[in-house]
C-alpha cells in the first residue's frame, strides 16, 4: 500500500465515522418525538441519565438511554452486567442463552477497564459507542471489499447510500450486537477475498461467538477454503496434503474455541453443556424453515408492517438483479450470497417479522453488494436522488412511529 492509498483510506474512514455520527445525531433528534417506557428497560433511568426531557410517574421518559435500549438491548445489557446466571422461574431459566456472549462480554470488559462507577448507566453508553464505532468501521471494511471486487465508483456510491439510509439499520445504532457482528463478518469476507484464510477463520470464529446464526458463515468459509485448495490442486501431492491437513486442524481449533468456552461456561452455571440449544424449546418456539411467513399470516393476516414489505421488495429486487447478472452466479462469490440466503431464510426463520428484517439488515450489505455489482448503468442520477430521499424519510418515520409506538397518540 502506498502512502497516498493510506491517506485516502484514512479520509474514507473519517468520512464514514462522520456519517455514522450524523446518523446518530439525526436519530437522537427524532427521539424528541418518541415516548419511551422506562419499565421496558428494567432500569431506573431517573438517576442515571444524561439528558431527561420529560418525566411522569416513572413511566414516560424521553431519554438518550432508553432511546437506545429497546427490545433485546436490555438482555445484552443484563448479560454485560451480570452474565448468564439466572435463578428465576424454570420457564425463563434458559431464556438468555440464545444471545451469544462476545458483544456483551466486550462491552462488559470495556466498562470494567474504564473507571466508571455507575455501571448500570455506563454500560449502556459503552454499548452504544461500540455499536456505532463498529458500524463506522464496517462501512470502511465494506469499502475495502468494494475495491477488492473492482466495483465502479458510481455503484459504490449507490451501495453505500442505500446501505446507510436503509431503515432497519436503525439497529446498528442501538445497544445491539448487529453492527459488531457486521464488522466481524465483513472482516471475514474481506480476508477471504484477499486469500488470508487464517484471519478469515479467526473473524468467523469470533462472529460465531457473537450470533449463533453465523454457523452458515462458518460453513461458507469452510467450503470456500476447500474449494480454493481444490482448484489449486493441493490435494494431489502428499507433502502439501499433510501441510493442508495440519492447517485445517488449526483452523478447526480456532473456529470452535470461542463456542467451546461459551458452552463450558454454560456447563458450569447450568450443569448442561448444551444448554444453549434448549432455549427455543423452553420458550415454546418451534424453529423450522419459512415458519415466520406461516405464523405471520396465521396470526396477523392484516398486520403487515410496511418495513417488512419494504425489505421483502428489496430482497426480491436483489434476486432480480443477481439473476440478470447470471455470470456472477458461477463465481466463487456466490458462496457468500448462499451464506446470506441460508442465514436469512433457514436459520433466522423463527423470529418475528421485524426480527427477520433486522437479521436481513445485518447481511444487507452483502445482498446489496452482489445485487448492485455490475448493474448500475441503467439507473440515472435523478431516480437515485428520489430513491435516497424516500429512504431517508422512511427511515425517520420508521423511527418516530415504529420505535415510539404510540408516541403521537399520547400527545
Amino acid at each position, binding site marked *: 500500500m502506498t502512502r497516498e492509498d493510506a491517506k485516502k483510506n484514512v479520509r474514507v474512514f473519517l468520512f464514514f465515522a462522520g456519517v455514522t455520527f450524523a446518523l446518530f445525531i439525526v436519530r437522537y433528534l427524532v427521539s424528541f418525538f418518541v415516548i419511551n417506557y422506562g419499565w421496558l428497560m*428494567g*432500569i*431506573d433511568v431517573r438517576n442515571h441519565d444524561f439528558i431527561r426531557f420529560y418525566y411522569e410517574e416513572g413511566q414516560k421518559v424521553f431519554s438518550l438511554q432508553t432511546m437506545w435500549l429497546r427490545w433485546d438491548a436490555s438482555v445484552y445489557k443484563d448479560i454485560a*452486567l*451480570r*452474565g*448468564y*446466571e*439466572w*435463578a*428465576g422461574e424454570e420457564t425463563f431459566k434458559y431464556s438468555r442463552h440464545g444471545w451469544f456472549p462476545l458483544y456483551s462480554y466486550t462491552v462488559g470488559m470495556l466498562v*470494567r477497564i474504564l473507571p466508571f*462507577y*455507575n*455501571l*448500570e448507566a455506563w454500560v449502556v453508553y459503552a454499548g452504544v459507542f461500540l455499536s456505532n464505532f463498529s458500524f463506522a468501521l464496517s462501512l470502511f471494511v465494506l469499502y475495502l471489499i468494494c475495491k477488492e471486487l473492482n466495483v465502479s465508483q458510481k455503484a459504490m456510491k449507490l451501495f453505500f447510500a442505500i446501505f446507510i439510509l436503509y431503515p432497519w439499520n436503525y439497529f446498528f445504532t442501538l445497544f445491539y450486537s448487529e453492527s459488531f457482528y457486521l464488522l466481524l463478518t465483513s472482516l471475514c469476507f474481506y480476508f477471504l477475498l484477499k486469500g488470508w484464510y*487464517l*484471519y478469515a477463520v*479467526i473473524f468467523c470464529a469470533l462472529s460465531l461467538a457473537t450470533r449463533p446464526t453465523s454457523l452458515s458463515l462458518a460453513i461458507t468459509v469452510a467450503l470456500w477454503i476447500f474449494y480454493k485448495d481444490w482448484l489449486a490442486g493441493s490435494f494431489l501431492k502428499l*507433502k*502439501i496434503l499433510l*501441510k493442508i491437513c495440519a492447517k485445517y486442524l*488449526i483452523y478447526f481449533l*480456532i473456529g470452535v*474455541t*470461542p463456542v467451546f*468456552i461459551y458452552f*463450558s*461456561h454454560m*456447563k*458450569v*452455571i447450568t450443569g448442561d453443556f448444551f444448554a444453549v440449544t434448549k432455549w427455543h424449546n423452553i420458550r415454546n418456539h418451534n424453529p423450522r424453515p419459512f415458519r415466520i411467513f406461516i405464523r405471520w399470516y396465521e396470526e396477523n393476516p392484516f398486520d403487515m408492517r410496511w418495513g417488512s414489505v419494504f425489505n421483502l421488495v428489496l430482497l426480491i429486487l436483489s434476486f432480480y438483479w443477481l439473476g440478470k447478472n447470471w455470470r456472477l452466479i458461477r463465481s466463487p462469490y456466490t458462496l457468500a450470497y448462499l451464506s446470506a440466503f441460508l442465514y436469512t431464510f433457514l436459520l433466522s426463520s423463527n423470529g418475528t417479522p421485524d426480527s427477520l428484517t433486522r437479521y436481513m439488515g445485518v447481511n444487507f450489505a452483502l445482498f446489496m453488494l452482489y445485487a448492485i455489482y455490475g448493474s448500475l448503468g441503467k439507473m440515472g442520477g435523478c431516480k437515485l436522488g428520489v430513491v435516497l430521499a424516500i429512504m431517508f424519510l422512511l427511515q425517520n418515520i420508521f423511527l418516530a412511529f415504529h420505535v415510539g409506538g404510540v408516541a403521537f397518540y399520547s400527545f
Partner: protein
Amino acid sequence: MDGKFNVCNVMLNKKFLFEVFVVFVYFLLAGFVYYREVVAIKAYKKDFTDYLLEYKDLVEFDQEKSLKANQERVCGAEVLVEGYYSKRPRIKIPSGFKTLLVETDPARLEILDKKLRIPAQFILFTNSDVGLSMFDLSFEKPEHAQLHACAYKDKIPASDIMKSYSSRLLESQVYVAFFDSGTGQVSIKRLR
C-alpha cells in the same frame, strides 16, 4: 526462498512466523477467558458450597417458620439456606469472600455506590437497629472484609433494598445473607 517446501524455508518465512504469533496470541487470550469464565467460577462454586455446608450447622431450622418466610421471598433471588436461629449465630466468613454490610442511610449511598465497584461476593443485610452488635463476626482474613455500620432508621423493608441493590451489583455470583433480628429470620439468597 525457492518455493520448495522444507522446514527451514517455512521457519524463515516472516509471514508464517507472524501467523504463528497471531495463533499464539489468540489461544493465549482464549485461555485467559476460559480460566476466568470456567475454571475460576467452578472453583468459586465449590468454595461456596463448602461454606454453605458449614453455615447450615450454625442455624437451627424451624420448618414452620421457614415456610412462612418463603412467602416474602425477594424477587429474583434464589433461596439457598433459610431458617431461624434460636441462638446467637457465629458466622465464619471463609477467606476469599469479601463482605459488605449495606447501608440504607441515603446520605451514605453515594459512598457505597463507589464501594460496590469492588466485586462483592458476599453481602450482609440486617434490618435491626442494633445492627452488627447482634452478631459475632469473625473473619479468617479480616483485611479482606469491608464492614459498614448498618441501621435501618426508616424501617424500609429489607427486600426492597435488596431488590434495588441487586440491579446495581457487578457480578452475577452474588450471594446475600439476610438477617432479621426482629423475626429471627436467617436466609442466604443468590441474586439472579
